[in-house]
């Protein structure tokens, strides 16, 4: 009897399906999801605190222009005018994706610009002196547009946030100066018209020998010695070796630190900006889509043209944005001549001889 019962128990245990546990990936995903919810809840709590605080301190205004929503305390701050100027620019830059900003209202606490009294914290909101001009306020609103997170791949390539602004000409001029002055063989070749070199310089290609494509030996030596000005221990030997002309030591040093890209954020940003411009109204939505993973392919998809065409067009735009070098303003010559005349008149106009 006992042995029969035992046999049945063993048979039941053997026949039972295995228990399914969660994998490490699933566990991490759940933890991430919890962390995301926690962050969101905190942000909402902060926002609530801020709104409560604003409501307690004074009356509250809600300004809506398009999808742009601003919550602010009552003040002379020209928010309505600024929002009216900011929204068309935001809509033009982001296209239909701009509608998403309605979910992220901008909270502003207008403060007295002349008071020295300590101001209370406003959580995720902004403290703005209420005498800010419409122009500055418009720029501020444009810079606070939040369309939610950009995927890590794009952020890593861009090395910065994706905040579009209406100052393309200025940015392109800055990139022109970079193209001319950056100590990189890839950048110089790019400026002279080599599209492949531009792809390298913009970090669009992920070749393993990218450092040697970015910099020639002399540039690598200069860069490495600049990066390791006062090395210690074993690093010192490598730096000395690099300084004495050992290129492999220089490469070792450069590879052991985060890649020193030859062009900065502005250059990559102007490329994204151009892709969005070429790609039309839905381009920003395509940019937010994390497929394809490769940034070059994604920019090509955003622009709707091949990446080489896009880069060639970018180069043309940058070369056309050559900054005006003169520091004397257009009317400066006449102003200087005017001052010369004024002072000369003082010299001539004195009615007395100097006799003392």
């Amino acid at each position, binding site marked *: 009897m006992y042995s029969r019962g035992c046999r049945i128990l063993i048979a039941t245990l053997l026949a039972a399906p295995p228990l399914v546990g969660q994998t490490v990936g699933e566990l991490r995903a759940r933890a991430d999801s919890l962390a995301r919810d926690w962050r969101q809840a905190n942000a909402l709590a902060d926002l609530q605190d801020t709104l409560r605080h604003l409501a307690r301190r004074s009356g509250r205004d809600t300004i809506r222009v398009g999808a742009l929503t601003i919550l602010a305390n009552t003040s002379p701050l020209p928010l309505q005018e600024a929002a009216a100027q900011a929204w068309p620019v935001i809509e033009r830059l982001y296209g239909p994706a701009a509608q998403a900003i309605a979910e992220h209202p901008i909270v502003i606490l207008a403060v007295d610009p002349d008071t020295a009294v300590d101001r209370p914290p406003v959580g995720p909101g902004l403290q703005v002196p209420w005498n800010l001009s419409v122009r500055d306020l418009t720029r501020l609103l444009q810079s606070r547009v939040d369309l939610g997170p950009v995927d890590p791949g794009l952020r890593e390539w861009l090395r910065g946030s994706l905040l579009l602004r209406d100052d393309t000409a200025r940015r392109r001029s800055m990139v*022109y*100066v970079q*193209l*001319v*002055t*950056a*100590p990189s063989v890839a950048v*110089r070749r790019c*400026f*002279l018209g080599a599209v492949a070199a531009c792809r390298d310089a913009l970090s669009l290609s992920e070749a393993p020998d990218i450092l040697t494509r970015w910099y020639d030996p*002399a540039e690598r030596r200069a860069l490495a010695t600049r990066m390791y000005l006062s090395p210690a221990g074993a690093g010192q030997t490598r730096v000395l070796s690099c300084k004495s002309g050992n290129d492999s030591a220089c490469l070792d040093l450069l590879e052991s630190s985060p890649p020193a890209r030859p062009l900065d954020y502005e250059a990559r940003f102007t490329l994204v900006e151009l892709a969005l411009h070429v790609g039309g109204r839905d381009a920003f939505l395509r940019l937010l889509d994390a497929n394809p993973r490769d940034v070059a392919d994604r920019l090509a998809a955003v622009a709707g043209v091949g990446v080489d065409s896009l880069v060639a067009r970018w180069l043309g735009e940058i070369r056309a944005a*050559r*900054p005006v*070098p*003169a*520091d*004397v*303003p257009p*009317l*400066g*010559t006449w*102003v*200087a*001549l005017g*001052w*010369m*005349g*004024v*002072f*000369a008149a*003082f*010299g*001539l*106009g*004195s*009615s*007395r*001889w*100097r*006799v*003392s």
Partner: protein
Amino acid sequence: MFRVILYSQWKWSRFIIGLGTVAGFGLPILSVQSATRTGDHPLQAGELLQTIQSWGALYPVLAAALAVLVAIATWAPDHRGRHVHALTLPLPRWRYALLRFGAGLALLAPPVLAVLIGAGLATALAAIPAGLQGYPVALAARFALAVGVGYAVFFAISAGTTRTASAILLVIGALIVIQVVARVAAVDLDVVTRLQILLVNWPGPLAIFTGRWMLIDV
């Protein structure tokens, strides 16, 4: 009459003019010497611009120095001679002063020309990287304007009476005293900075001296 005054001023200020001409010619040449060197690693664009910018600080200094010295030299002999010579001439004062002013400006032409020639030569000799350009004419024109404005300012000061000079000094002193008192009393008043902004920012009289003086730029 102008030729006589020009000749007399030339005698008084020829040393200054000679030195200024040599400096004006040499400055642009020296500023690009690193770009003309035939080394194994010539200067790259960024380094060249830095070098040019560093040397560029000397152009307004040279312009101001020339302006001050020539303006002083213009009036110094008259002041020393108690204006007896000027008073013997059958000329109204404004005309005499105008002749002096014109002669001083004419004497400042050689240093300006030297800057133009030196800058032209320097840009022709330098190995300018792609994307950069030489601006010898713009630089020389700016130098001429700076010399002219500086000369006019110091000419007016030199032509004035001791009382005028005292009044100017008194005003400057009063501004400094007000600034110090305001700071001690913790009053938010910054007269000196405001005055400085008015003078050295466009369209202020000294704005031509400020900013970057670049012989080679993007």
